[in-house]
């Protein structure tokens, strides 16, 4: 995706695909070995410079040459290349801010190019609230080094010692003789600068920031309000045809017969078989849909006996050995020092990503090369998958992610790109695959159903003496203990990733994977314990907290909310939840009203406070908090995937109920300033509290403990009955 800093144009990129992330390959890719390159002195060893660690999957493959991230045109405009994609979380704005700030150029002079494997530096994928937190540091370092090199070039050009040079607004100038100046564009003349620094300059102090840390509106808004923003399904190629693919009626179904003769007789229809895949192509989507209807097939659908009610027992029976996420003391000592023991089990159902844009891909395969536009969070991963599927070297495959219409983890997997590539090769013409909403649900990598068992103890002083926590198949993230508890153990039985024989369909990362489940279970249980101890649930948490950041967000939320202490259930319907996600600390408070007759929950107000370290774009960060809160209403109250024997019963928005305008509470957000620790995650943290804050609010309103998410009216009524 390409975005000009001050124009609405969104041209498709050009250039050969990226072979690998080696320096030589990078230069070659830019067509710059031999000509067009400015070589000032010897090619330095770019690897020798001390840089932010590029560890593990996050950064191991990210190039270190600043030229991979930045290009300064002869007109001094800066193009910033990042391997991330824009799916709504706003990195297109915050990356431009970070680059502009570190380079000392205006925000408006930065153009962004994102998610194009042919032009952008490698990245593992856009997920985990990592863009600003990690990739942003790479961008800032690249900009800082580029600025240092520009100053060195200017010193030679202006015959002035480096120490007298300053930079501002894309200009290097001599502080003693301000008329002695040269622009970045005059220095680079649009070429790559093959020169590097011996040491990185110290990072610019945040106190000198004029762009980063200031609120900026979305830079893609103009394109998006006019319809000019291009998503994958909006791309067009000459001769392109739409594909529809024959799908099984259920997961685990085996096809025993297929008859394509009806479709083959239709005008303009091409029937293709590619391995097990049977597909039809037609110049327009209606024609492809009509052709698919003329294909008949029979399937064996196994009776697994697994459905959305039996799944929890199935999960417990198939749990692998646990991994211990955190522990202290001994559970036996905790047990013996406890006066009362509280044991509970919490459940959450499968939840869909349901982005508004279904998975789409447009593929052109010819002359041993593939070019594919795809709605994906992982363009570089898709490049490998397509290369493997087509038997091509990766450098012959270019993936371009235009604007992505929502991902939330669900577009980490992008099977549609491989489908389109295989069909395009077979057909000999460009092929567009756009999943129907039914396919989008069927092939979603759902947030897994999960079970959490907590066995906890209170001592005679009302303090937590035991915390034995077991989570099944949600995963580890967010379960680690941060309270002052002498004897605790967090055991994780299975992660959120696909595990053969466990889930009846694919599962995967769903916005803040695992954390939503873990925080819900922990906070509802904390409130049950606080009630048992006869203490206000906020005070109960603070009594067990010495972590200043967690105390800070809880106190900030309480101030904004106007929390006053009361024992649960107070009848007021006040909820509380807090957690750590993506290194960000977050606390939420909510007010609900429960209709005892219908079991309906009205969420009146949600307050959320977040300490996310340094905030690059406070406006964007606030948007993410609001979005997380709104989206989180769904998994807490209404979203649940029903299924029977691998057959999905919810395949569209008539029965799969995502939050709507009419379910909107008042939303208030507070950012707790903490710039000294650098930027932490922003795209996910605020969603992790939504299950917990609403479950504790329902408990406070009624005394009823709803132990399963989503808290549907039926479950609320059942819990009310149990509570008496």
């Amino acid at each position: 995706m390409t975005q000009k800093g001050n124009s609405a144009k969104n041209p498709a990129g050009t250039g050969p695909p990226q072979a690998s992330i080696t320096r030589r390959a990078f230069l070659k890719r830019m067509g710059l070995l031999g000509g067009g390159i400015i070589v000032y002195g010897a090619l330095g060893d770019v690897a020798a410079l001390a840089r932010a660690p590029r560890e593990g999957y996050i950064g191991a493959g990210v190039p270190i040459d600043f030229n991979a991230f930045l290009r300064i045109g002869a007109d001094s405009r800066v193009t910033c290349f990042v391997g991330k994609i824009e799916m709504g979380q706003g990195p297109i704005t915050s990356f431009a801010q970070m680059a502009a700030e570190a380079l000392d150029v205006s925000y408006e002079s930065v153009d962004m190019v994102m998610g194009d494997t042919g032009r952008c530096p490698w990245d593992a994928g856009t997920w985990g609230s990592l863009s600003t937190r990690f990739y942003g540091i790479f961008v800032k370092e690249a900009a800082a080094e580029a600025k240092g090199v520009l100053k060195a070039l200017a010193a030679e050009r202006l015959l002035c010692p480096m120490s007298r040079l300053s930079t501002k607004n894309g200009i290097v100038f001599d502080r003693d003789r301000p008329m002695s100046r040269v622009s970045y564009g005059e220095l680079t003349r649009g070429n790559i600068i093959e020169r590097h620094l011996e040491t990185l300059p110290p990072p610019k102090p945040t106190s000198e920031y004029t762009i980063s840390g200031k609120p900026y509106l979305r830079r893609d808004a103009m394109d998006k309000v006019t319809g000019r923003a291009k998503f994958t399904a909006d791309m067009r190629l000459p001769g392109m045809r739409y594909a529809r693919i024959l799908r099984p009626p259920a997961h685990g179904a085996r096809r025993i017969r297929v008859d394509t003769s009806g479709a083959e007789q239709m005008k303009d229809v091409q029937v293709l078989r590619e391995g097990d895949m049977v597909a039809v192509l037609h110049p327009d989507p209606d024609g492809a849909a009509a052709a698919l209807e003329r294909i008949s097939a029979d399937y064996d659908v196994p009776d697994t006996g697994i459905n959305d009610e039996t799944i929890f027992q199935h999960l417990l029976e198939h749990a692998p050995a646990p991994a211990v996420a955190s522990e202290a003391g001994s559970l036996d000592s905790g047990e013996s020092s406890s006066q009362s023991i509280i044991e509970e089990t919490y459940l959450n159902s499968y939840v869909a990503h349901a982005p508004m844009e279904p998975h789409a891909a447009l593929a052109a395969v010819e002359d041993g090369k593939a070019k594919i536009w795809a709605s994906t969070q992982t363009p570089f991963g898709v490049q490998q998958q397509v290369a493997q599927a087509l038997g091509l070297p990766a450098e012959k495959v270019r993936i371009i992610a235009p604007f992505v219409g929502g991902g939330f983890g669900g577009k980490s997997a992008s099977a549609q790109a491989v489908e389109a590539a295989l069909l395009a090769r077979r057909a000999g013409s460009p092929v567009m695959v756009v999943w129907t909403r039914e396919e989008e649900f069927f092939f979603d990598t759902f947030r897994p159903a999960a079970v959490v068992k907590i066995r906890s103890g209170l001592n005679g002083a009302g303090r937590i003496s035991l915390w034995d926590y077991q989570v099944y198949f949600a995963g580890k993230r967010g379960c680690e203990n941060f309270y002052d508890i002498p004897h605790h153990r967090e055991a994780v039985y299975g992660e959120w990733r696909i595990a053969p024989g466990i889930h009846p369909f694919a599962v995967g990362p769903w916005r803040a994977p695992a954390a939503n489940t873990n925080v819900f279970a922990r906070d509802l249980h904390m409130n049950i314990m606080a009630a048992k101890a006869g203490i206000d649930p906020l005070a109960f948490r603070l009594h067990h907290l010495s972590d200043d950041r967690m105390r800070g967000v809880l106190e900030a939320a309480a101030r904004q909310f106007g929390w006053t202490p009361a024992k649960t259930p107070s009848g007021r319907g006040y909820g509380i939840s807090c957690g750590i996600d993506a290194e960000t600390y977050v606390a939420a408070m909510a007010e609900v009203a429960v209709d005892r007759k219908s079991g309906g929950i009205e969420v009146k107000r949600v307050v959320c406070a977040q300490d996310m370290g340094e905030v690059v774009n406070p406006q964007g960060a606030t948007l993410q908090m609001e979005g997380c809160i709104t989206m989180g209403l769904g998994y807490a109250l209404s979203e649940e995937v029903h299924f029977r024997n691998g057959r999905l019963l919810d395949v569209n928005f008539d029965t799969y109920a995502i939050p709507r305008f009419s379910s909107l509470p008042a939303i208030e957000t507070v950012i707790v300033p903490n710039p000294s620790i650098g930027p932490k995650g922003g795209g996910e943290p605020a969603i992790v509290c939504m299950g917990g804050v609403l479950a504790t609010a329902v408990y406070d309103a009624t005394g009823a403990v709803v132990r399963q998410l989503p808290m549907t009216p039926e479950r609320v009524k059942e819990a009310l009955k149990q509570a008496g």
Partner: protein
Amino acid sequence: MTQTIQFTLNGSPVSIDVDEERTLLWVLRDDLSLTGAKFGCGEGLCGACTILLDGEAVPSCQLTAGYAAGKKITTIEGLEQDGRLHTVQKAFIKYDALQCGFCTPGMILRAVALLSANPEPSSDQILSAMDGNLCRCGAHVRIIQAVQTASEAMKGGRS
């Protein structure tokens, strides 16, 4: 069956030869190159394909091309007048009333239809009018602010 269908599209007359049974959404997107209306659900349940048909917000995935004959259609591409954004578009920018942007054209057209029919809607009327348009990113609070602001601006004769 292929027919010549004439209608007014974004203020200009168009005449196309097209199978009248084809889905209007695809005709707009593929035959007329207007990709602002999006395919989201195919059942009229999400509002991503919303267009204005004689001023009324309707899901174009539920209409045939033949149904458009003789009607006035406005898509998101037709809201700008002489290079100037519609008040609702400006308000969406001002309030950052979008994230991924996929639902945005439908949201804006739904709001335009509401404000045309009811220039001073109450908060409840806005919620109710917008309720059929889904947004997964959670831009709802800002969309409401944008629609309210646009309503006030249009009332005051500003645009």
